[in-house]
């Protein structure tokens, strides 16, 4: 069961802020530099053969938030994250990490930031083949020049955390995909980063291990309070971990919202089609589907913030509707069988 969800964070003072971000691939896109935003936009629209990987993306990620990016293949998810980490320079627009603009940032400061503040887990693991598990995990510290004894001590602790005890001296080629990704995760955590970027970290893993790793991620997030930007293709994964989800389509961010709002109030047909397959009972909260408080309701109340799916069994077993209580224990509504059945089956039948 997912831990308590935070309310959607305020979008002032985001830790990561993208302001009208464009990333265009093609021959001589350098010509765009120096144009006014409007002129540049017109130029991009007029150019054939250019590929707009990111088009006018504006968004903020709050401190401590789990921010999930979804979209079809080629919709620009990786490009967005590569811009956020400074791996790719945006063609236009600004990107601020904790108030620091990445454009024109002092290279030394950027290196410093990557060494301590942000880190990344790669889709294809990117383990170094010549280093064993321990050395791979300790690699970021080696880059920082931390003495061997110290970094190995820290690495050994993380090896335990990700459940690779006893494999410290194995080489990547000797590990399964799931084990390799654990190494990648441990490596990205060893610098104790504030912001953690994960680009489809679990898509190469089988469902069982994926499930286990998601649990681990949530546990880590609960105990370490990191800000997480997470790319995935998988809705189950997204709704399990996300505070908010950004849906991308052809380089544009179409909607950013909680899973529940995406389902209840899709911004356009694309999002509606995209979210149709989501099992409603797993994203909708009782408060969104409840009926007004009713005389007939009986029994112990359920919480308004609970997911419909989590209380479904109780409602279905009861003859009468069940009262709904808010956080303070006041009765604010009621939930009957019919509503629950409709919620559970509406997603699947669409």
């Amino acid at each position, binding site marked *: 069961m997912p831990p308590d969800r935070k309310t959607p964070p305020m979008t002032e003072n985001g830790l990561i802020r993208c302001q009208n971000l464009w990333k265009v691939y093609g021959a001589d896109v350098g010509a765009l530099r120096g144009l006014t935003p409007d002129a540049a936009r017109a130029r991009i629209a007029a150019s054939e053969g250019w590929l707009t990987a990111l088009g006018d993306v504006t968004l903020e990620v709050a401190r401590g938030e789990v921010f999930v990016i979804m979209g079809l293949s080629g919709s620009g998810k990786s490009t967005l994250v*590569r811009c956020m*980490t*400074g*791996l790719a320079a945006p063609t236009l627009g600004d990107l601020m990490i904790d108030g620091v603009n990445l454009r024109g940032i002092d290279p030394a400061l950027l*290196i*410093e*930031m*990557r*060494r301590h503040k*942000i*880190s*990344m887990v*790669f*889709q*294809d*693991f*990117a383990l*170094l*083949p*010549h*280093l*064993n598990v321990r050395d791979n995990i300790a*690699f*970021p510290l*080696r*880059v*920082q020049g931390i003495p061997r004894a110290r970094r190995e001590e820290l690495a050994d602790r993380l090896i335990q955390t990700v459940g690779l005890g006893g*494999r410290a*001296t*194995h*080489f990547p*080629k*000797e590990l399964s995909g799931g084990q390799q990704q654990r190494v990648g995760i441990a490596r990205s955590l060893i*610098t104790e980063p504030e912001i953690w970027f994960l680009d489809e970290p679990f898509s190469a893993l089988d469902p069982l291990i994926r499930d286990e790793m998601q649990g681990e991620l949530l546990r880590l997030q609960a105990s370490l309070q990191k800000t997480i930007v997470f790319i995935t293709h998988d809705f189950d994964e997204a709704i399990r971990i996300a505070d908010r989800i950004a849906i991308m389509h052809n380089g544009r961010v179409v909607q950013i919202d909680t899973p529940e709002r995406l389902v209840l109030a899709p911004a356009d047909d694309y999002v509606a089609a995209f979210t149709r397959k989501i099992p409603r009972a797993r994203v909708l909260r009782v408060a969104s589907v409840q009926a007004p408080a009713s005389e007939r309701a009986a029994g112990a109340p359920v919480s308004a913030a609970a997911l419909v799916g989590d209380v479904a069994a109780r409602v279905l077993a009861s003859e009468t509707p069940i009262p709904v209580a808010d956080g303070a224990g006041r009765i604010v509504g009621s939930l009957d069988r019919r509503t629950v059945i409709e919620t559970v089956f509406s997603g699947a039948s669409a």
Partner: protein
Amino acid sequence: MMRVAATGSGRAVWPLLAGIALLLAGLALAAGLPDWARRLPADWQVDAAGTLNSFFSWLSRKAHVGPLAVKDITRALGTAVELPLDLVRGLLAGGFRLRLGGMRLEMAPLPWWALTAVWTLAAHRISGRGGAALVLGSCLYFLLFGLWEPAMFTLASVALSVLVGAGLGLLLGAWAWRWPRLDAVLTVLYDIMQTLPVFSYLVPILLFFGFGPVAALIATVIYAMPPMARNTTLALRRLPQSVEDLATMTGCTPRQRQWLVLLPAARQGLLTGLNQVIMLSLSAVIIASIIGAGGLGNDVLQGLKSMRLGRAFEAGLGITLLAIVLDRMSRAYALHRPRHGRPGRPARLLLGTFGFLLLALLAGQFLPVLRDFPPALTVSTGKMLDDAVAWINLAWQGPIAALSDGTVRYLLRPLKELLLALPWLGVTAGAALLAAALQGPRLALVCAALLSLPALTGYWDQAMISLYLALVSTLIAMVLGLPVGLLAGQRPRLDRVVTAVIDTLQTLPTFVYLIPVVMLFGLGDFPAMMAIVLYALPPAIRYAKDGVARVPPKLIEAADMAGCTPRQRLWLVQVPQALPELMLGLNQTLLMAFGMLVITALVGTRGLEQEALVAVSKAKVGEGLIAGLGISVLSILADRLITAASQRLRQRLGQG
């Protein structure tokens, strides 16, 4: 099968080819051709050699870079190379002679037993018992046949040139990876360096560094470095983007990025390059014996010159052993994947080895018993072998002479005369037309420009002689190699034997091939051809074999289901499908033929390669370079044309 039948876009090519052949023949026979179209008259030719000669003589005598004379710079460079070379040579064999004031100090080299022990143990670590036995056996061979010292000289030169070549290659390869424009330039340069006969650049090197091991070492590095650079660039390019991103995201400095992430991650490709550098270095060090590199190559050369073929044979066998050992060890090391449970840091082992060698060195100084291999134990079959060769030549004189004379009379000479009779303009135009038909006007232009070089510089006849020898040898190698390859491609057991044989053949330095053919056939075009055929055979076999083996199983099944007999299946399905691969094989075979052709100058051929060799002995830089460039031009041309043809074929077969 369907695809083979549907010729489609490629159909237009073959009539054109026929047309070109007709054109060539017509040009050759047309009586009305003006003289200049047959051969350029001398006063139309460009004296490129003379110009180059005066340029190099200016460079070596008068040129200055800033306040420094070029000759002083090269002299300093020579000394810088000479010091480590002397050190390694002295340690492995030969020892040191120092003069301190009036005192003369003599120091013995590392004793044979210590080196043998260390190498055998190292081989055991790298490739197990088999490797250890091979190394021990080779050491014993050198010791017993009195070849220890030359073998160690050769090894010292190889070691140093590998060190320099690999380092330089790594650097250039990494730069080329970072700056694609540099890569384009370097690739052309490497193409020329690798096709230019060694003899050609020996001359300028001689000019600057004088006769001896230093010049030899520099020539060796030039010859052996390119594959390292190419492999480095390739290996870096093949790294997944995420490895680079990892370096960035962990906050690597540029240097950390290079040395901690990129190069180690590309290790496998780099080691493949290293293997090639080692093998080419050995090959070049042997050839460089003609400019005084010494070592085993010198023994072979002296043996061949004085017709003490037994001695040459023993030294040649020594080279062969050295080649096999070096190839096997470096390959095993390259294939070696890190595994857990192996001690990761062999620092203690290295320290122990070092200590042992130091002790052995000291022991060698004071205890003569421990210094030299007991001479009483050495043997030589040289005399016996000489006698055997004499006997074979006597007993089989009839058949050998018949084979040799017959081939020369009915194959070699007619072909040579045909090529020599062709007008340069006809050949050039024909090649250009062919290129245009195969790929387009650009390649045609390149062809025409390349072929005018020997015509304009007055080396046309020699170029045709080189071409004829390369072509005829390639033809024979293909005729011999194809059936073997096709058979092996279908029979896994035969395949294993054939692969083992051609793998070994391919590790041997070019020079070694001269020994048996000279023993049996003496000097001239026929032995040269035999050596070239032997050397060029492996790719002919290998590509045929792999081409057939790689035909998709579903096509084979389709053929079987259509009721093909095995023979029909081979000719109707497998061979047509494997054609592009066979073309690549032809290309490789021809390139190898050119590679060997260069060396056959030593057994008295008459083409460009001979001009290059003569230039070495007369120290004529210009002539050597121009003749060498001629060979370069021919092989690059052949390569481009065959590659274009093979691409066409591939398209036609729908293989992308």
